[in-house]
């Protein structure tokens, strides 16, 4: 119970901390940046955004650079992970809906909005496969 409370409080703080700007788009961008740097230990992380509906405008902010092809990316954000081909499938994949997360074993996590609330999940198995160690503040979102 304590873990859940902590995790939820953590997510809230995480959200609140990035809510400097009021725009939902900016919150999403900030969250993408946090997730990208948590998974890929690079100063500048290249992100491929396959789900065009997730962000209206892809702006390079906070050490995140959006690339046009998934093969050039360090992190892939898509709605349907199984539609990815070749080398892209081996890269860290994040999905933007729960169905995509549940139906595929590829995603390392999911970030989406449901009922006006943000949902962030990391898949433990895939984190281990990619040898990703999450920062302490994100560990509470890891599920089996």
């Amino acid at each position, binding site marked *: 119970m304590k873990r*859940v409370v902590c995790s939820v409080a953590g997510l*809230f703080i995480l*959200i609140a901390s990035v809510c400097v700007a009021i725009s939902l788009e900016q919150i999403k961008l900030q969250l993408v940046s946090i997730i990208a740097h948590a998974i890929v230990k690079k100063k500048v992380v290249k992100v491929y955004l396959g789900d065009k509906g997730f962000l209206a405008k892809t702006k390079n902010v906070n050490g995140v650079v959006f690339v046009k092809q998934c093969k050039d990316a360090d992190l892939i954000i898509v709605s349907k992970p199984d539609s990815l081909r070749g080398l892209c499938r081996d890269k860290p994949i994040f999905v933007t809906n729960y169905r995509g997360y549940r139906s595929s074993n590829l995603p390392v996590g999911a970030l989406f909005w449901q*009922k006006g609330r943000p*949902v962030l999940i990391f898949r433990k198995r895939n984190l281990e496969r990619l040898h990703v160690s999450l920062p302490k503040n994100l560990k509470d979102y890891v599920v089996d």
Partner: protein
Amino acid sequence: MIKYLLPIHRLLFLLLLLLFFSMVWVYLSFIKAMYHTSTGVKNIEIGQIRRCATTIDGTLRMYLQPTDNLVEEIENNPDLRKKLNRVLELFVSREIKYVYVIYRDNKGFYRYLLDGSKSPKERGELNQIFIPVNTVLWRRCFESGKDTYAIQRNINTLWLTYLHPIYLNHKMQAVLVLDVSMIAYKKLKQTLAPLKGYLRYLLFFVLLVIFVTALELYLFMKERKLGRIDTLTHLYNRSYLREKERLINLDSVAVAMVDIDHFKRINDTYGHEFGDMVLKAIAKRLTTYTRTDDIVVRYGGEEFVIVFSNYHAKKNPEEVKKIISVAKRVQEQVSSTPVRVKDKQIKVTVSMGLDPFTYRRKTLLESILVADNMLYMAKRKGRDRVEVAKS
């Protein structure tokens, strides 16, 4: 600058200020009343939501058998889940945006059990993890087993989240959640908004009137001040003295008349521009060597009047000697240093006529006339001196 205001203006200004503060008070009282009304209406709205939650709970029970494990029963019966989801869907409206049922698993995670959301994107799947924003609310509901609600401050689209525990076999098994949209809140706000707006406009109008009046008063005061100041020397002029006369207590002042010696000659020799500079210099010296309480007036041409204040010869005759010495000191100081204008330096002296017995005069003008006579005498006696009235 306030001293240039007429009493009627002061009264007007005070009345406007009073009006403004009254308006502020009315506005604050209205805000307070609105808060109470809003709370009342909110409670009515919450009461309706509570009744709705009870109705949904009752409807769900019509389909459920008494069980110790609701989660297992729904997990094992997809048709039942579908039916229950459809029941919840019936209660989704513009006001109640989401209706769903959440349970808490063994690890303490909140998970979806049922969801009445129509949109597949919004619908939480069975056992999907649910992350509440307001954790305290959820903890409170699961721990107390009672209906709970909270105003959503971190979700833009929702106003309120209402939690209603679902009991089966006297055991709390899940929580029915009703997310109330901002529409209800907006409706509430819209009811009171016109009144608030009306008061704001009124307050703004009063402020505007105050501003315009204050501006007019300021311009009036400025104009008035300009009319009482000599533009060349920046000393008060004769109009000021005439206006001030009735306020001056003759028992506590002494009047001196000062005139620049051979001023005509200065003008003729060096020109009027130079003469003006000399006038300015002498005026500055007179202001410097007198006290701030004393009034120095350019009476006309090269003549100045000094009204020495805080002088009480009537009560204390010794003060006469004192004021004579003060007047002499002023005259000496003004005359002692040559005036320097545009690389030219000339010796300028002044003569002074002093009436230390102003308290004996009927008017200030009478005292000025006495001082003027003394000045005339000083001129006749050779200038650059002070002549004092004997009685």
